[in-house]
Structure formats: structure tokens, C-alpha cells
């Protein structure tokens, strides 16, 4: 098992579940508001509650619990092998809003919008 601290795991499975638009981590709205996103601390969701709504979405498909991102093929394929262990989603429906994309660029943080078929 990796030596990383795992992200919080979602405490419920209802409509409160949201996925971070950049790293696709899945938690509840309250969890994002309280502790922000473990992979994307620069979004500062824990400080600015509006950010939670901008940076996360309830529209996502599929759930993957990654216990060991470094040794998981699935995590590598989904390009989440660099993130902390936790529950992620396979795909999100929207792209990050423009201003946040610019924020990512400024901080040299890689972001890939979701692929559209």
C-alpha cells in the first residue's frame, strides 16, 4: 500500500456526492466544503464555499476506489496515478470553468478537460 494519506472517503451515496472537475475525486459537498480537495488544494474549496460549486459537479459516471494508485493499472490508465488513494470517478460531464482553468495554468498545474465522443 502506498505511503500516502488517503483522501476522505464519501460518507454517503446520495445526491450530495460531487466530483472534483480536475482530479475527479469524489466526496460529498460537505466534505469538500470542510476539507477542500486533497489533490487540488489551490482551489481552496475549504476557504471559499462558492468554489465548491464551481470546481465540483454532481454529474459523473462510474466510481473507482483506488487503494494503491502507484501500482494500479486502472489508475494509470485514467491518469489518476499521481493522486492520493481515494474514491474517484471515471468521467465527469463538464469542463472546469475558464477562470479556474486559467488559475491552473498560472500555477503550472496540468488539467485535461473531459473527452467528448
Amino acid at each position: 500500500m502506498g505511503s500516502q494519506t488517503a483522501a476522505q472517503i464519501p460518507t454517503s451515496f446520495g445526491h450530495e456526492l460531487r466530483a472534483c472537475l480536475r482530479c475527479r475525486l469524489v466526496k460529498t459537498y460537505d466534505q469538500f466544503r470542510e476539507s477542500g480537495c486533497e489533490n487540488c488544494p489551490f482551489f481552496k474549496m475549504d476557504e471559499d464555499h462558492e468554489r465548491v460549486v464551481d470546481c465540483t459537479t454532481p454529474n459523473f459516471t462510474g466510481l473507482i476506489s483506488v487503494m494503491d494508485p502507484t501500482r494500479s493499472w486502472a489508475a494509470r490508465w485514467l491518469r489518476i496515478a499521481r493522486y492520493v488513494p481515494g474514491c474517484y470517478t471515471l468521467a465527469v460531464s463538464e469542463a472546469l470553468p475558464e477562470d479556474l482553468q486559467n488559475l491552473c495554468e498560472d500555477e503550472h498545474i496540468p488539467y485535461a478537460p473531459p473527452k467528448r465522443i
Partner: protein
Amino acid sequence: MPRRDYDDEDDEQEEEEEEVYEEEDLEEEEEEDYDDGGKSGRKRRRSDFIDDAAEEDDDEDEDDDDDYGGGGRRRPKRRTGSEFFDLEAAVDSDEDEEEEDIEDDFIVDSGADIPDEDGARREYRHRLLPHEDQEEDLEELTRSIKQRYARSAHVEYDEEATDVEQQALLPSVRDPKLWMVKCAIGREREVAVCLMQKAIDRGPELQIRSVVALDHLKNYIYIEADKEAHVREACKGMRNIYASAKIMLVPIKEMTDVLSVESKAVDLARDTWVRMKMGTYKGDLAKVMDVDNVRQKVVVKLIPRIDLQALANKLEGREAPKKKAFIPPPRFMNIDEAREMNLRVERRRDPMSGDYFENIGGMMFKDGFLYKTVSMKSISTLNIQPTFDELEKFRQTGEGGDGDMASLSTLFANRKKGHFMKGDRVIVVKGDLRNLKGHVEKVEEDTVHIRPNQKDLPLTLAFSDKELCKYFDLGNHVKVVSGSSEGATGMVVSVQGHVVNLVSDTTKELLRVFADNVVESSEVTSGLTRIGEYELHDLVILDNKSFGVIIRVDSEAFQVLKGVPDRPEVALVRLREIKAKVEKKGNAQDRFKNHLAVKDVVKVVEGPCQGKQGPVEHIFRGVVFIYDRHHLEHAGFICAKTQSCVLVGGSRANGDRNGNPLSSRFAHMRAPPRAPQSPMRSSRGGPPMNCGLGRGGEDAVLGGLG
């Protein structure tokens, strides 16, 4: 100097890393507290390589990291890397080299290092920190940087996905495998999360790498692990996974399909046709009036299915016997009727659109339609084909005032534009001259001039195109030029206002189309004979077990006669369910070992199709498909075992197993002939009517024996 060690002894480096890797596992197993164990393990590991200077740096970094958890691990490297570069710049005073450029160079250079990656990825945690405080030659520095960062830099830029790189991420035999496990239905996500919690609690003892719960796959989850035993171990004690559950290995080629998501971007726009998925209006056609992306809700317009009596009862507090599963039929809401029932009707103004709505019992009505706010998840937006009847119903109240209706769906759009051409037969549908028939003389912007059939009237009369409608006499042969039945031809059997009923030439079924979509024509279409690459009468393979012949082509699907000899089995398949077409001509032997090929005429001598006879259309896997034009079912196709057929004109005397021409000649002489002998027959009973396709060998024999 420590750094030299790295430069020269790269191999040793890797060995050391691996040793430490094992060491780390041991260490971690001893640790009770997972989080601390990781960190201290890291400390211990690093100290083996790194001199004190760097280690101090490490400690600083780790303290900072506490706030950020694992994600911050990337930071220390960057920071120290940049420190390193600054130093290098100081030494060099070369200001052009920016941090990013150098890292980009690494990507290019590390192209050659890709084979190392797999091992490297596992070990990237063991990334070595540079020494910042040494002055070295520029070349040595760059070389050491490249060696040290090549692997990890490449991994770092993983995020910039290109399709080529995706190919490089395909699963290899060294990767963990995917195992499919059955679980309680509806609990797939719950199981995934529970296993995550278990992994956090148990730490490295739980040897599964990830768990996938797909939205569209019920009852199953995928677990990624190296061994099936690991999966079993992980699932022990999970309430939602059955203890006896079968664990199925996913073939390596299908692994990527598991993780691929069909994300179709469905953009809901106003005036789109959708269908309701749930509730009383399930399956009903609805039109989107307003979209709220923030709250994921839409306002749709529906034909109400309201039981006024029940509603009145409910609002007045009267206990009404609620009929279970009673769905009222769709009917336009009549405000006056509602008032009669003593239902309170409120006239409300919608702040958004400014329209007036009647509010009855909390539901908003306008023009007889119900305007309902629903979540985006409860409507189906794909492949909505509004049927003819539904559209008509939506039209009803809209026709008079609602000018928008005309431009909305394509079906409507065509209808309102006049399709009139010179010579069209028309009938007047509005005004005083209703039911007057005539022919179109001239068509202008909005007016159509017709020559009425009545002799007493003036030669031409002008009408607006809304007052006219194309007319067809019963018995006319027509062709549909637009709409859902486009391409069909047939004969008119009845006319009702704008709607023409016709009997299709091909399918012999009754089609209802708008008169505007039809023109008179003597063309007779042969109907749809192909969709995609598959034509009528092709032999296709459906999946590993079944195959069949296409006997009918409908607009969306094929009717396939399956290759089941004993009973005729017809399946309706869609284009995507067809795997491949069988091109090659099969060969087989009939009951008496006569060689069968396509186009040979055979007769069925046993089984349910006994007595049928006809040319062979396809041979495949021991089964023949025969076309018998007298056979009324399945477009004349019959499926039979090759053993149950006899080649018409074939010899019955060839009992020899090997089919050896010489010995069969003897056999032929020995056994009493059961069928009249033809002089041509001297070997294996090649049918005289065979046109010699691919029979070169036999002909030679024939010639030889001749």
C-alpha cells in the same frame, strides 16, 4: 563525491532501491499507524542515499507537507529542483534556461527511456533528491539531472494526454488483473467505498489495487489485483458480496473497455423533444421549454394526465378510494371543467417568461398543456422519434395562436411550407369552398392558384397554401418523399384530412403519412435492402455461437434466420449486434458424401423441412441454407443440416469414408446401385449441373478415368 556515485553506478542504484523497497514493506507491516509508518518509512529509506544536507531539507519539506497530505509530495521535488537550477544558473549565468524548458527537454530525451518506465513508476517514490550545494561542470550536472529526472519527469507529464501515450498505458502482463465479482444489486458503489475504507484500515495487508463500480453494470464490481486469492481475501466479511460469488477474470484485451465511458454530450436546448422516464408521464413525449443547468432541472410541456375527480377529492380532503396504478389518459386541461369541480384555479404570472399560467393544485397549466419542472435525470433525450400521433396531439391547441409551432421540429417545418407543385391534385380544406378539388396551376409565395375541377367556376382560383391540402384518390400509387417513412412507396387506401393512409409495396403494412410528404409516382421501390454493409440474404455471424441469413431488412434492424437446423428460429437483430459477414463459400458433404457447394440444388430428406428442394445459398458449420421459392415462410429460406440433404442428381452409392475416387469406384461397382447411374458418374458423384467452380481436381480425375 556523493553525486559521482549516482552517475557511475546507476545499476547499483536500482538494486539498492529495490532492496529498500522490500525493506520498506517490512517496516510498514510492523507499523500500526498507517500514516506515520509511511512517512517514517520514507525517512528511513531516503537516509540510505542522501547525505545530511539533503536530508535536512527533507525534514523541512515534510513538515510543510503535513498540511497537504500526499499531494504535496510533488512540491518538495519541484522546489528543490528549482533551487538546484537556480544554482546552476548562478554558476553558469545562463538566464535562458528556465525551469520549464529544462523539464521539457527531459520529455524529449526520455523518449528512449520508456522501457524503464514500468519499473520506474513503481519506484518513483524513491526519487532521489539532488544535491544543491555542489559546484560541478555543466555537463555532468545536466547528465545527472537527466538520469535522475528522466523517468519521473515523464511520469509527471502523464497528465498531458495524447492518444499515443494512451496506447503506451495499455495493460501488460505485469500489471494487476481485473476480476469481476458479483455483489448485491444496487450496492455497487457502496461496496467500492467499503473496500476503500477497509484498505485504509488494513493498510498494505489488503492487496487489491482498486475497485471499479460502473453505473450501467448492475450486480457486479471489478477488483484489480494480482491474484484471485487477494480478491477473495479482500471480499471476506463484506456483507454485500456473496461468499460464494464467482470471481471471473477479465481478459487483458477487454480491460480497457471496462474503464471506457461513453460520454455523450447531450445539450438540452429549448424546444427539444424528450421523453419522460418516470412517474405518471413515463414514456410520454414532452417538449423542453426552459433549461436550468445550475440546478439540473428543465421545464417541460406535457399533455396532462389529470384525473380531475381524484384531484378534487384530494384537495377537499375527501377520502377517495385511490385506484392503484391507475394512470389517467392524456387529455388537455379544460379550465372550466376544473372550475366546475370546485377546484381552485389561480391565475399566476410566471416571473421568467411573463406568461400567465393557471395553477391548479400546484400544477401549472397553459393552453391546456401542463408545464412541469423535472430533473434532467428523469428525461430521456437521445433518439427521440416523436410518433405521428404524438405530434398531432401536440399540434392541436397550438395551431391557432402559437406561431412558433411551425418552426420547431423538422417534421413540422416541412409541413407548414407549401409542398405544392404544378400539377398536384389538391383539395380545399378551409373556407367557403371547402372540399373543392382541383389541380395546381401556379405557385407563388403564399398563394397557390388552382384550376378547379368544377366547370362552372372561373378558370383559376387563388388560395393561400394553408387552405389547401394535397389530395390523392384512392388507388393512387404514391411515394413518400419526407418524414419517417421516407422512401416508401405504396397505394393510397384512404384519406383523412391531412393524413393519407397507404399500403406499402414492400412490407404490405399500413402507413400513415402527412399528405404534404407524399407525391404521386409510379415508382415502385424494392424497399430497403441494405443497412451499412449488410444486405438482404447475406450470411452473418452474430456472436460466437450463432449465425444466420438476413431475410428481411427493416428500417432499424434485420430479421435473421438462425443457423439452427431442426426448427426455424428467427431473430430480430440490430446493426451493431452483427459481428461480421461470412464471405467465403463453405463446403460440405451431403448425406451420401456428395460434395456440396453454393448454388447446388439439394433436397431435404429428413427433419421438419423434408421434401423441400432448392439451390444452396450458404453453407456454414455443417448447416446449409436453401432457398425454396415455394416455401412461404422466412422469405423462402430453409436451414438444414448438411447430413439431412441430398444433392439432387448426386450419387447415392458412395459410402466410402475417405471419398477417395479410386476406392469409390470400386465401391460403386460393388454395391448395388440404388439410383440410376448416369454415364458421367465415375468418381465422386460430381453433379452434372455443377458449373465446375473449384472442381479442377475432380475434373482432372474424371478426365483421367474418363
